[in-house]
């Protein structure tokens, strides 16, 4: 048992992120208050991991490292890149937001980095044990981040609620893994498709997979495991909500693509049917409840349930197009949703107010750049071309139709129309309605503006040239 250099190279992004987390923690321990340094170090570490991952995506053949624990190849590296982008944008948005909320602490960045490390472990898991560890690492980091604003009651509630329900759902996931192991004696994820064929009628195995499904559905906030999402996204610090809704969701969906791969799903039609019903219910519930929200943060929380439904349609398609569509969607969703939460974090005043629809009326006169960016994110979330959100939806729905789930795609399109009512309402309010507080201008911090501009350019770039990303996703499966 000896590791080769290839093993270390394979796990390099994970190593970079973890070591950066240690460094940030040590800096925080020895030089309390040098948060400027730690935030830049965090961004630097994530950027380094991003570049290492991106250089390897093209033409990478799938394999494993560390004795069949760590998956290598295009898929883990591409997902790693998505998580790093999510992390970098969150870091850029956080520095100003944390200052405003009096939350300036270096631990924030250390915990954020460990969350990214957990996500990378999930996407690069070749073994259920490793996957579970990554999920736990990410989740514990999220519990801490959600309750980070200790002075705010809502944040405490968010942290506690997420922790209690999350721990419960993790129990389901772990029990499911135990049953799968009990049925097969193996924990290798690559063995799941062949076992699915052989054990399609064995209750131990199928119930095990179903319990794993429950755990993952909780993490992506799909119906009926969505209850926590609105309260947690509303109560958590806004930048953290954006991070959880994008990076966390992307990580859980990479778990879907690994464990409920097209091969496994095609062997288990019952499980596919259940997932398709859950996808439809998530789209319907998320969109319809989002219409009646007055707080933008809450609206984004419900809409994230709806987006989980759209992405599940790509998962359940059980074909290559659907799976590639999921990756594309996750990349686009990361950019547009962090952007939307980022705009909210800038608008939010120190006591957590200023994030209702009414308060955004006439925003275009007070903050023209910010309103323009928010309009881009809203158009993209609705799925209007030429932004990347459109192609994300296009690929997952096309995949669903190819997989025989035409009805799901129809529901998805109809619900996207519903979603236009609450996304575009914000745009209309910002541009065509007189605001009450005309003289108060909004100051946009430079780092936050940079993050929003990066997200908007990314959305436009992926929307105009989707083949840029599709060339890479083609290597994933």
């Amino acid at each position, binding site marked *: *048992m*000896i590791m080769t250099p290839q093993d270390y190279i394979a796990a390099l992004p994970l190593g970079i992120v973890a070591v950066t987390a*240690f460094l940030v*923690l*040590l800096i*925080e*321990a*020895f030089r*309390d208050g040098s948060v400027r340094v730690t935030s830049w170090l965090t961004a630097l570490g994530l950027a380094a991991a991003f570049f290492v991952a991106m250089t390897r995506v093209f033409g990478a053949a799938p394999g494993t490292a560390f004795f069949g624990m760590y998956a290598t190849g295009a898929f883990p590296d591409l997902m790693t890149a998505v998580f790093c982008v999510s992390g970098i944008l969150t870091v850029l948005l956080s520095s100003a937001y944390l200052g405003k909320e009096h939350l300036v602490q270096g631990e924030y960045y250390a915990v954020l980095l460990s969350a990214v490390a957990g996500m990378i472990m999930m996407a690069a898991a070749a073994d259920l044990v490793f996957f579970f560890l990554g999920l736990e690492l990410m989740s514990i980091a999220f519990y801490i981040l959600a309750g980070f604003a200790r002075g705010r009651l809502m944040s405490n509630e968010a942290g506690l609620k997420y922790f209690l329900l999350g721990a419960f759902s993790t129990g389901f996931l772990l029990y499911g893994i135990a049953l799968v192991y009990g049925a097969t004696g193996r924990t290798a994820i690559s063995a799941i498709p062949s076992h699915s064929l052989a054990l399609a009628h064995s209750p131990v195995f199928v119930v095990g997979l179903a319990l794993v499904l429950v755990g993952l559905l909780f993490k992506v906030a799909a119906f009926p495991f969505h209850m926590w999402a609105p309260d947690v996204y509303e109560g958590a610090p806004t930048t953290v909500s954006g991070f959880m809704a994008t990076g966390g969701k992307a990580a859980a969906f990479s778990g879907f693509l690994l464990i409920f791969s097209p091969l496994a799903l095609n062997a288990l039609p019952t499980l596919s049917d259940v997932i398709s019903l859950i996808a439809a219910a998530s789209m319907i519930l998320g969109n319809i409840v989002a219409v009646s929200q007055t707080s933008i943060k809450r609206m984004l929380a419900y809409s994230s349930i709806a987006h989980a439904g759209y992405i599940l349609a790509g998962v359940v398609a059980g074909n290559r197009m659907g799976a590639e569509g999921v990756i594309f969607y996750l990349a686009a969703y990361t950019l547009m949703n962090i952007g939307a939460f980022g705009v909210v974090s800038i608008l939010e005043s120190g006591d957590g107010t200023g994030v209702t629809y009414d308060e955004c009326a006439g925003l275009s006169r007070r903050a023209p750049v910010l309103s323009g960016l928010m309009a881009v994110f809203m158009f993209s979330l609705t799925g209007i071309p030429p932004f990347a959100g459109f192609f994300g939806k296009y690929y997952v729905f096309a995949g669903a139709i190819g997989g025989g789930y035409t009805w799901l795609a129809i529901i998805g399109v109809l619900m996207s129309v519903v979603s236009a009512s609450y996304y575009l309402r914000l745009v209309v309010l910002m541009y065509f309605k007189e605001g009450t507080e005309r003289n108060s201008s909004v100051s946009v911090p430079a780092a936050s503006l940079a993050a929003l501009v990066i997200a908007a350019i990314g959305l436009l770039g992926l929307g105009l040239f989707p083949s840029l990303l599709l060339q890479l996703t083609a290597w994933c499966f």
Partner: protein
Amino acid sequence: MEQYIPIVIMIGVGAAAGIVFTNINRWIGPKRPSEEKLSTYESGMEPVRSARERFSVKFYLVAMLFIVFDVEIVFMYPWAVLFRQLGMFGFVEMVVFIAILLVGYIYILKKGALQWH
């Protein structure tokens, strides 16, 4: 199954010793209660309020940190059993494991999480 018999006997003897020693006083001691004897003994002071009070959250922090390092120790148990067999590789593994937790320990010390005030 047979190799567990000594363990079962040990558990039995241990439990019996615990039960007997804590109750032997009650079983064979003479009992002559009076009002004075039955009152709460607090070094001669009059008891003024309930002994059950809310604990400070500081205790919880200590308990949490204890658990984390307790879990760390648990990993050393199979490692110690296999130490010779694992050789240098196992040694380095454990050093890395402890080094990562050492970061946490340094953090705790520097943050003053173990100081009471």
